[in-house]
């Protein structure tokens, strides 16, 4: 007895091939990430043989003597990224609140468009503007700030003397401008998940808009906002070209003085690559791998936080 129709469908060779190709493309993502870790750690050998663990703890970076200590650049990366986040977070959060609550619906699109434009300007253009336009007025401003806080312990260390136009702070300002659109758009998404009934509950109790934000929006979205800020931190740490142009390229400087010239991991790679020998290159590839590891960890944690918060927001609707 022959069954006329096979409802299971016939195995189709083209179908199988297409599925295989699609899986291959998906595997490529994992492959690239794995290859980055493997290939680059394979090139770290020379510098780690020479420096050992002091690569991570030494302050001395002197290619001419063949000495490579990554600590000052690690410090510079963290310090500039923190400055950027401190400058950017209040502005990003207030802009996100402005877009979601204050601006009339018809104004929302143009505002988002402005943020998109900020996000689309290439980082090298930010760097060019920073070094040729912003650096000089900033130096004068730094001097004024230093004179204003001189003598106050703590502040006089951070806003230290002999300020430079190219410094940790300049890099922090430029990075802050660059990560503001990222943090703002994520913050908007998180804030918008606040359930309408919780907002109305606050208003019904007589809350002003700001009190409603404190009572309803904040408890609901603080987890997601922390994640958004961390994602901005990750971006700021990995940003290369803008930082390379405005950070000042000091060597071996670990200081709290934000007005002093500094250096960061990506900036030193971009600036020194051209004239580097083999050992020097190996030291910089190790720097890049370290940067890769740090940004991956920051991104993993932050996207996990954002996702969890967004899911919880939807779930409670």
């Amino acid at each position, binding site marked *: 007895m022959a069954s006329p129709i096979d409802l299971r469908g016939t195995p*189709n060779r*083209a*179908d199988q*091939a297409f*599925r295989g190709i*699609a*899986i291959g*493309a*998906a*595997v*490529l*993502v*994992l492959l*690239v990430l794995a*290859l*980055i870790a493997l*290939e*680059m750690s394979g090139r770290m050998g020379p510098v780690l043989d020479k420096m050992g663990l002091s690569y991570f703890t030494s302050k001395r970076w002197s290619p001419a003597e063949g000495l490579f200590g990554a600590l000052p650049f690690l410090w510079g990366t963290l310090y500039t990224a923190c400055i950027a986040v401190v400058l950017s977070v209040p*502005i990003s959060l*207030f*802009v996100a609140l*402005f*877009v979601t609550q*204050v601006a009339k619906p018809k104004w929302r699109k143009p505002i988002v468009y*402005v*943020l*998109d*434009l*900020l996000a*689309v*300007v*290439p*980082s*090298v*253009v930010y*760097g*060019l*503007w920073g*070094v*040729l*336009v912003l650096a000089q007025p900033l130096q004068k401003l730094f001097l004024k700030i230093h004179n204003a806080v001189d003598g106050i312990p703590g502040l006089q260390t951070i806003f230290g003397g002999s300020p430079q136009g190219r410094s940790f702070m300049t890099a922090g300002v430029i990075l802050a401008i660059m990560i503001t659109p990222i943090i703002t758009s994520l913050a908007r998404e998180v804030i918008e998940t606040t359930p309408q009934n919780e907002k109305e509950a606050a208003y019904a109790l007589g809350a002003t*808009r*700001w*009190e409603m934000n404190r009572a309803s929006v904040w408890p609901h979205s603080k987890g997601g906002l922390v994640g958004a800020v961390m994602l901005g931190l990750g*971006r700021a740490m*990995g940003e*290369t*070209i803008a930082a*390379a142009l405005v950070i000042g390229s000091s060597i071996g400087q670990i200081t709290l003085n934000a007005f002093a010239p500094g250096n960061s991991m*990506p900036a030193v*790679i*971009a600036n020194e*690559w051209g004239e580097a020998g083999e050992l020097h290159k190996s030291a*910089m590839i190790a720097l*890049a791998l370290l940067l*890769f590891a740090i*940004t*991956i960890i920051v*991104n993993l944690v932050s*996207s996990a936080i954002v996702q969890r918060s967004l899911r919880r927001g939807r779930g409670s609707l």
Partner: protein
Amino acid sequence: MRHPGDPILAISLEPRLTWRTVKNWIMTGLMVAAFVAITIPLIAILYSLVSRGASVALRSFPEFFTATIPVVSRRAGPGMGPAIVGTLLCTGGATLIAVPLGILGAVYLHEYGKASKFAKVVRFMAMVMTGVPSIVMGLFVYVLWTMKFGYSAFGGALALACLMLPIVIGATEQMLRLVPDHMREAAFALGASKSRVIVTVVLPAALPGILSGCLLAIARAAGETAPLIFTIGAATDYNPHLFDNANTALSAQIFSNATSSFAAAQERAWGAALTLVVLTFLLTLIARIVAARFAAKR
């Protein structure tokens, strides 16, 4: 504290000037101020670009866009032609690599893998990959390709493709999610195989959205510098070959000229920056128009 003569119940629904309302105004004012604060750098950058870049680009029009780059950077005069060609080569090559692979990856995630464990891992890793610093991608391609085959525009294209891939995957998967299931079911009911359904029904339905996402990814890639400086080398003359010899790009030219102390080099950097920004803005604008058309049709 209530005095004997006061009325017991006094509710006024008129807004009263209390610290609470004043605080609300202050906070609203801060929100507006924050928005004004972020538009200032955008306007300042655009002003600098137009005022410094346009004069350079237009003074020697059209030579600025066609002439070769002066070998000695302190020499005045035009020339960003080779850099424009290099940018187009690297970005075009990256598009040819990343867009098909990214779309296929997203097709796997949404049409085959769905909620399977493997698909979840890939989706998560693609998200992680969007956060990998562009300089790491540049050095990765340097180690993987440039050390073996030398400088070429293709190395730059590979590095940019690595950056674009996760963005294309993310944007495409989002668009595939918008294609209603009944369209797939209708095609299956007509006896079409799965690959056929995907190629002839699902992808065409999502095409404008995918296109818009890809254009945004291309715009991002066109402005990248860090992945290129390790992979394409440096050149001052036209090099239309994708696989051979060192090349240059607009972003790389801006980077090398920005720190030059020579006015002529700085001028060329501004001209190149204006060209690059116009290019990326145009791509973004086209992407928005495509997306708006798509939204209107739905």
